């Protein structure tokens, strides 16, 4: 684009700015600032490195008591074998992850991260009343589930520092398939 030589520099700048404007985002803005309270109400994720784990702590023995009251109506205790409860999957007692169905894939045999246990049971359990327990009670339930799956010792205290350090048996059993799955599992045939 050629400009008349007589045009002052400031006008030239303005003209360039106007020409550039269509390339800039021209979206209206309707978002309003989110407060920390808005975020706290909406965001419950716990990351594998322990980020966002809350204060509090628990142990397996306290977890067993909580499990009997809050969880046992749907999930068998170790040694129990109620077939109705088995329909929603076993939580304990399976070491071999290669079991054919995902209902045989337990915390000890399949789950790659210990933080997922705390994250999930806090947001979703007990089924009839999620988020009804305290953070320490969820830590205790997490400790109990990890202990009964043979992942931690009975007296291990579980809190925001110890939980991310727990090494799960199947930690290295996953392959990221995004954006592309490994060649050997591909099913695109000529």
């Amino acid at each position, binding site marked *: 684009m050629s400009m008349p030589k007589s045009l002052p520099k400031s006008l030239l700048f303005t003209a360039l700015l106007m020409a550039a404007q269509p390339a800039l*985002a021209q*979206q*209206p*803005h*309707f*978002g*309003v*600032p*989110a407060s920390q309270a*808005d*975020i706290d109400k*909406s*965001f*419950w*994720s*716990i*990351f*594998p490195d322990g980020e966002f784990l809350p204060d509090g702590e628990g142990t397996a023995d306290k977890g067993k008591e909580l499990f009997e009251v809050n969880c046992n109506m749907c999930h068998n205790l170790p040694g129990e074998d109620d077939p109705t409860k088995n*329909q*929603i*999957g076993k939580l304990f007692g399976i070491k071999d*992850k*290669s079991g*054919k*169905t*995902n*209902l045989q*894939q337990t915390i000890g045999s*399949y*789950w*790659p*991260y210990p*933080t*997922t246990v705390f*994250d*999930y049971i806090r*947001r*979703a359990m007990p*089924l009839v009343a*999620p988020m009804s327990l305290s953070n320490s009670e969820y830590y205790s339930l997490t400790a109990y589930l990890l202990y009964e799956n043979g992942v931690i010792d009975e007296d291990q205290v579980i809190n925001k520092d110890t939980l991310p350090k727990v090494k799960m048996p199947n930690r290295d*059993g*996953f*392959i*990221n*398939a*995004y*954006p592309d*799955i490994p060649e*050997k*599992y*591909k*099913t*695109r*045939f*000529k």
Partner: protein
Amino acid sequence: MDKKGNSIIIDAADHVAKGGVLNRRLFLNSAIASTAALATARAAFAQEAVGEGQDDWTLIPGSSAELYGSRSRFEEERVKRRLTPMSDEFYNLRLTKYTARTPLDHMLGTITPNGLHFERTHQGIPDIDPDQHFLVIHGMVKNPLKFDINALENYPTVSKQFFLECSGNSGTLWSETPTNESLQAIHGLLSGAEWTGVLLSTLLDECGVSKDAKWIIAEGADNGMMTRSIPIDKALDDTMIAIRQNGERIRPSQGYPMRLFNPGFEGNTSVKWLRSLYVTDRPVMSIQETVKYTDMMPDNMSLQFTLEQDVKSIITKPSNAMSLKQKGLYEVTGLAWSGKGRISRVEVSADGGKTWGDAMLQDPILPKMLTRFRIPWQWYGGPAILQSRAYDEFGSIQPTRNQLIAARGRKPTYHFHAIQSWGVQSNGEIKNVYA
């Protein structure tokens, strides 16, 4: 002769594959003859006396205009089904209660009516007051912002048709022996709709998303707060915050008042009742992307984040929802789709995949949307095995079940996308078979 008395003459040149698979243009050619016959019949009726022999609905004025339309009372049985196609081994109370499948045998086009769109929730459908609900975008952004439904309504929107498929759809076909379940039970976690919403990239731009962002963690406001990690490249591409489905506010079962919609991705990632988008540099490893929605391969390694739905097709008619009453001419029709883009070709076989004929693809052929295919088929009255095979514009080809199992084994429960076979028996009954 067909029922209207039109002669359809099929000669050798019409056969494009063995087992009675015919040229896709056959019905188009014969339709010209039918139209002429119909015009003659109407002209003849106009000369008859009025009224006599008419039905009540013709003689009596109908009911008033409806404020919200409803179906014919004769259609009440055409509903979604809450059931599980899994064997007893898989039987799961929650899965049964919180899953309803689309009656694909009744679908002839590509759009699923809102009342029949499949639904899958993990802890039920929440009853959300839209005035109390907001979406917050936070994390690696300059300005954490929140948006309620009224704010979202003010943005420029996009409307596009997309399929939505649960990655557990057709999962029963991983099992060793073919299930006796219906088409609806096997494949009914699949629907197509027009989704309208605000592109997520628009809102991320307003928040000032960091260049180091790699993932976005989406959380719902439902009981159990569904959580999935979404790659940033998807979020900045075609992911939308959907607020309409087929022209009306999305329904409670689909995420009212707002849901994430990731076109072409496994259904679970399109988090309903969306409340939080946390922008970060890593996935959160929620239960739904580690323990669930992962597939164990033959070497006991599990594929994680298999997000894009593979190229796939199913025959919806004929299917085991019906039986063939007489030999003769039928239309084989079904649906094809790919999470990558457009369907480029669908072939149909009547002899279990030995020979194939090209089906006609019905316009419009849209990316990441169901495409309807059709092909005429002559049933000679003997056993036949009907199959369809889809291709997408990126060169992906739907594998046979044996090819899929050779690559991925039989341990997965999700992401079954291989060719499925309808076995037509000599008596006209149709069964799900492995071939």
